[in-house]
């Protein structure tokens, strides 16, 4: 079949228009400017010890914490639902069921980023976290824990200071790192020595926190006292405090270890 000359010429002309430019070797890559997070971001990681894909979500969290800093990416593993194990054998809590119902969690692993955007599969977390890291926080939060090992009594002082002013709910949680226990792995293997980190233990000031409102420059301080469960290891625990509202999500979140040198235990 003969191809008309007109078509050949047109095709040749089109090829010249899309030819590559010559770029010097030293100018082929544009360096990414250093990124400094403006606020911290909360990840509520709905997970379960019988969820084989959940370790993948945990790895995603670890990667983000390495990239952006642990203090800026505050993750809390909320064990609940049909793929979790109940206490004392497992890490599920009754409070988790309330959060699962609130966010309509149906599949695992699922995450809620800064209490905005609903539940998301872990493959979408990094982009959502990056977006929230760039926002200006409306409040600053300072947490001062004081623990008495003899009585297992923990006193927590939480100071919320307004930057631009805000109103919402202050939630104060306890999380624990370095818990060794069962986890079903992506390969199908059962890992009885898996190290679970940032596990939600309890909501100190109620499931949904309590109201807080601060004007710019004003500080609101609240103090709480809680007795640690005998099964919890205080040296591996931390306080997670955040202010949130339905319109803007989490305004700011901080994590403060109970022990001075506490950090997440690596597997």
């Amino acid at each position, binding site marked *: *079949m003969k191809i008309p000359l007109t078509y050949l010429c047109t095709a040749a002309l089109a090829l010249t228009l899309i030819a590559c430019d010559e770029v010097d070797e030293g100018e082929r890559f544009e360096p990414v400017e250093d990124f400094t997070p403006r606020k911290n971001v909360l990840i509520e990681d709905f997970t379960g010890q019988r969820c*084989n894909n959940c370790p993948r979500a945990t790895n995603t969290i670890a990667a983000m914490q390495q990239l952006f800093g642990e203090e800026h990416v505050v993750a809390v593993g909320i064990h609940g639902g*049909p*793929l979790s194990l109940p206490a*004392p054998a*497992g890490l599920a809590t009754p409070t988790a069921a309330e959060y699962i119902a609130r966010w309509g969690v149906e*599949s*695992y692993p699922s995450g809620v980023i800064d209490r905005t955007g609903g539940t998301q599969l*872990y493959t979408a977390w990094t982009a959502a976290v990056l977006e929230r890291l760039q926002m200006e926080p409306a409040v600053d939060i300072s947490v001062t824990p004081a623990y008495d090992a003899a009585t297992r009594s923990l006193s927590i002082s939480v100071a919320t200071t307004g930057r631009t002013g805000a109103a919402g709910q202050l939630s104060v949680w306890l999380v624990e790192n370095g818990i060794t226990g069962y986890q079903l792995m992506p390969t*199908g293997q059962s890992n009885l020595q898996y190290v679970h980190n940032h596990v939600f233990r309890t909501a100190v000031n109620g499931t949904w926190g309590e109201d807080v409102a601060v004007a710019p420059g004003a500080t609101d301080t609240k103090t709480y006292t809680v007795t640690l469960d005998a099964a919890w290891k205080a040296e591996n625990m931390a306080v997670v405090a955040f202010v949130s509202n339905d319109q803007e999500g989490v305004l700011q979140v901080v994590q403060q270890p109970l022990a001075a040198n506490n950090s997440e235990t690596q597997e």
Partner: protein
Amino acid sequence: MKKIFTLLFAAMALFTAKAQVNITFNGQTVNNGDVLELQPTLLDLGGGYTILEWPFDPTFTNAGSSATNLNVVVTKDYTDGPGLNWCGITTDCMPISGSSETRTTTLQPGGMTTLHLYPLIEPTESVDCTASVQVMAGLNVLSFKVHFVYQSTAGIDGLTAETAGAKAVEGGIALPAGPWAVYTVDGRLVAKGSDAGTKLLPRGIYVVKCGTTSQKLLVD
């Protein structure tokens, strides 16, 4: 023009036909119409707490040279029975809503995934149900069934010499006519049938279910 379209379709067919997904179960190739028996393992987590671990199989492997779209449809073959939790093909776990569900993924050359489908039951519950699985990879379609079976021993205490006509004999169990099933003490199905006769078995304790009656028998 007609020759060009013919060549194009032939090229597309050749490209698609290169998609080759192997399905295996316990290392064996799954063929059209197969019924795969899925039984759980009882795992003791300590403190008297046990869970059921179901196999991730069957496994889907792209043995071809190009990426392949894998489309898997699971249909429950029952109306009354436990929910089915689906954790395979894609990376999220959730119960199947309704009677049927479809999952799709893309397998790169050499890539693999598993079905990882199992009934939502506790070790104290029993199950004997089937689901149909239809797999489409490129132009290839294959259908098989997965049969979930587990017999809980909860509520079955102590040994007995005879139950509902079944009794332990030397080297096995004599079974009556009528529906019967024999399980290990951790719930795994050993044999089932409806004809009267003697089933030879290795020495050990078995759970025998005749009709609706279950008891433990010791085979010497």
